[in-house]
């Protein structure tokens, strides 16, 4: 057991920290709405790209640094610590790229990877549907083959960044006569066509991170199938497995920063003298440290012993629950500001409600823990 970083890992951290200190992003745009904000993040990714910091975990042959999982986690910790924005094309970098590296043809890798890295082409993820959320394999969007192209119709939801995207990682049903997991195919769909309409979905924070996609007779050339027809579930799992890796370390640091801010505020206001508030903050501290320890344990166990433990689902569950408790406690410590529209704390409070739903609801995570970690009998539901 050794809870320190190796000299090369420390050097990696120092190099990145130094670069971030010398190359901060432009100030966040105050006007111009979400589009200006997105343009700012896109510009930031180009700078990361020019310096070779857009996706250190990608292999060097695809323009990354071939960073180890530990180094990649350090990367996200530092991005979080420096309070710089996430790269605009985060879904392409974290999900699309790695999925193509695992399943794509040489031609697909050649065509798509480089523009992901440079933010030239933005990617979005078309998985969830109105009637297929947790039960993803029940999705209904259909793709039918006509000569050398596929014609797609259906509806997708919770599609982050769709309005800025060139490509959509789309899972659609290509065979209705086989069990639901077997009739799916994974496509890369061009978003710039009449058959694809994007409608922003306003969320409880007032902003629109997500969209609905209305797809009607959209065309996808056959060479845009990823991983083979009928193999979509397996390919989608690769995407989903990448969803929680990496990014979790930025979120974990963000949680730490929020807690440190809250403790500092409580100290300034003399509220740490209040035993109940002190107890609540100490409990959050224990949880926050547990998130950090479990996240690192999961990552390094997988790196060293090739077997990730049960930590993945536990970390996401504990993190999301802790973030909600923390942002709710802020109302009592920070005071009226925390409940005033437009403040950082009120945004955090409202945004945190999404944490226990997005990327696997807490209820689904508990099912995963119960069935796959503890080996409890499966819930008998339709399959």
């Amino acid at each position: 057991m050794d809870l320190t970083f190796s000299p090369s890992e420390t050097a990696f951290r120092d190099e990145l920290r130094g670069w971030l200190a010398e190359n901060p992003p432009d100030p966040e745009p105050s006007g111009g709405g979400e589009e200006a904000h997105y343009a700012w993040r896109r510009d930031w990714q180009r700078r990361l790209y020019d310096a070779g910091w857009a996706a250190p975990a990608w292999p060097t042959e695809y323009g990354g640094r071939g960073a180890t999982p530990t180094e990649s986690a350090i990367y996200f910790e530092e991005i979080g610590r420096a309070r710089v924005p996430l790269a605009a094309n985060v879904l392409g970098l974290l999900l699309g790229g790695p999925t193509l590296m695992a399943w794509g043809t040489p031609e697909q890798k050649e065509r798509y990877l480089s523009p992901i890295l440079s933010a030239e082409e933005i990617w979005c993820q078309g998985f969830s549907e109105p009637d297929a959320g947790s039960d993803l394999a029940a999705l209904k969007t259909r793709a039918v083959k006509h000569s050398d192209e596929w014609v797609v119709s259906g509806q997708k939801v919770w599609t982050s960044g769709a309005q800025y995207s060139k490509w959509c990682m789309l899972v659609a049903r290509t065979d209705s006569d086989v069990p639901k997991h077997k009739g799916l195919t994974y496509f890369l769909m061009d978003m710039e066509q009449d058959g694809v309409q994007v409608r922003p979905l306003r969320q409880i924070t007032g902003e629109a991170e997500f969209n609905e996609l209305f797809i009607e007779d959209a065309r996808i050339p056959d060479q845009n199938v990823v991983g083979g027809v009928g193999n979509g579930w397996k390919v989608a799992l690769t995407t989903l497995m990448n969803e929680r890796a990496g990014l979790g370390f930025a979120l974990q640091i963000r949680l730490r920063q929020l807690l440190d801010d809250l403790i500092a505020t409580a100290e300034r206001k003399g509220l740490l003298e209040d035993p109940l508030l002190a107890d609540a903050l100490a409990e959050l501290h224990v949880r926050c440290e547990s998130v950090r320890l479990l996240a690192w344990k999961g990552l390094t166990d997988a790196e060293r012993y090739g077997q990730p433990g049960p930590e993945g689902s536990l970390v996401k569950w504990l993190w999301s629950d802790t973030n909600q408790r923390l942002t709710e406690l802020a109302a009592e410590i920070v005071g009226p500001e925390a409940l005033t529209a437009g403040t950082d704390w009120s945004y955090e409070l409202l945004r945190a409600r999404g944490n226990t739903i997005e990327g696997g609801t807490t209820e689904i995570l508990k099912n995963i823990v119960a069935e796959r970690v503890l080996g409890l009998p499966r819930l008998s539901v339709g399959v």
Partner: protein
Amino acid sequence: MDFGLSDDQREIQRTARDMLSERSTPERMREHAQDHRSDDELWRGLSGLGWPGIAVAESHGGQGLGQIELSILCEELGRVLAPVPFLPSVMAAALIGEAGSESLKERWLGGLASGELTGALGVCAGGVAELVIGAPEADVLVLLDDDARARVLAAGEAEVENVDSIDPTRATGRVIAPAGAGEELPGDVSAGVDRSLICVSSELVGVCDRALSMTVAYVSERRQFGVPVGSYQAVSHRCAQMLLDTEKARSTAAAAAWSADSDPAGLAEAAAMAKAAASQAGCDVTASAIQAHGGIGFTWEADVHWLYKRAHLDAALLGGAKRQRARLAAILAARARGEGRDAAIAQSIREPAA
């Protein structure tokens, strides 16, 4: 970063698990608990393997290994609720080892390391220490006084009354120690207390782990409405929560054990955190185990209640979850005031130890 055990540590864990599954069976535990007696044969067996002295310096007759190795044994013994005075003895040895004068170490550590002597650690308020685990049979008592000082007493120097705690797997006593009796520990008492907190935390991890595995086995087997009750989410999600609580306790206890051996500046905070998480998990996970076992869980025959009882004694030992969080809050406050780590630790040990 590496959270894994070394080959040697894994070997210690495997040996302990094998030995205890053979020689500390549930039947044997129950028998000794009901008769209120220690398992002397088991104690001789584990003493023969050098367990009580695993973290005692070689110069004092121990194996000279670290807190990680000691924590491995605490967890394994906790898992089987071994009716032996291991925990109180190693806590007494930790205090004497960290804070004792050479002559105190000379006098006591060899016997504690070999298992020929046993010890106990109590928290004194007004000269009386309540519910001191292992006190009735202890040869040496370490008492933490109100002023965060500690003293060592030989068995005859204090009055010990037998007290029946809710957990009969270990003897407990009320210790009455006249002011001035015994010899003060001149050194770093807080480090000894922190190591003791880690030992209890590790024992609680073992208790939680056992409670969870018994529960998973039971709810997978027990059928109602034609299906195993563990297939209902009301039950399976409770089990998932038990795992989360256990893993929080496990990871914080492991980090604290590592701190004790490799990062002394972080020890106070890590130990308080481990004990906070483990005390909470111990009480919650064992309570959940009783609930998930249904009516059976409430019976004397089902072994879950022993886990609940042990968890509560351990949780209260040296301060429960709320006391530990109060200590953590003091550390956080000092840090927020910019007083730095050393000041924070100094602040935390000015708080009473329990």
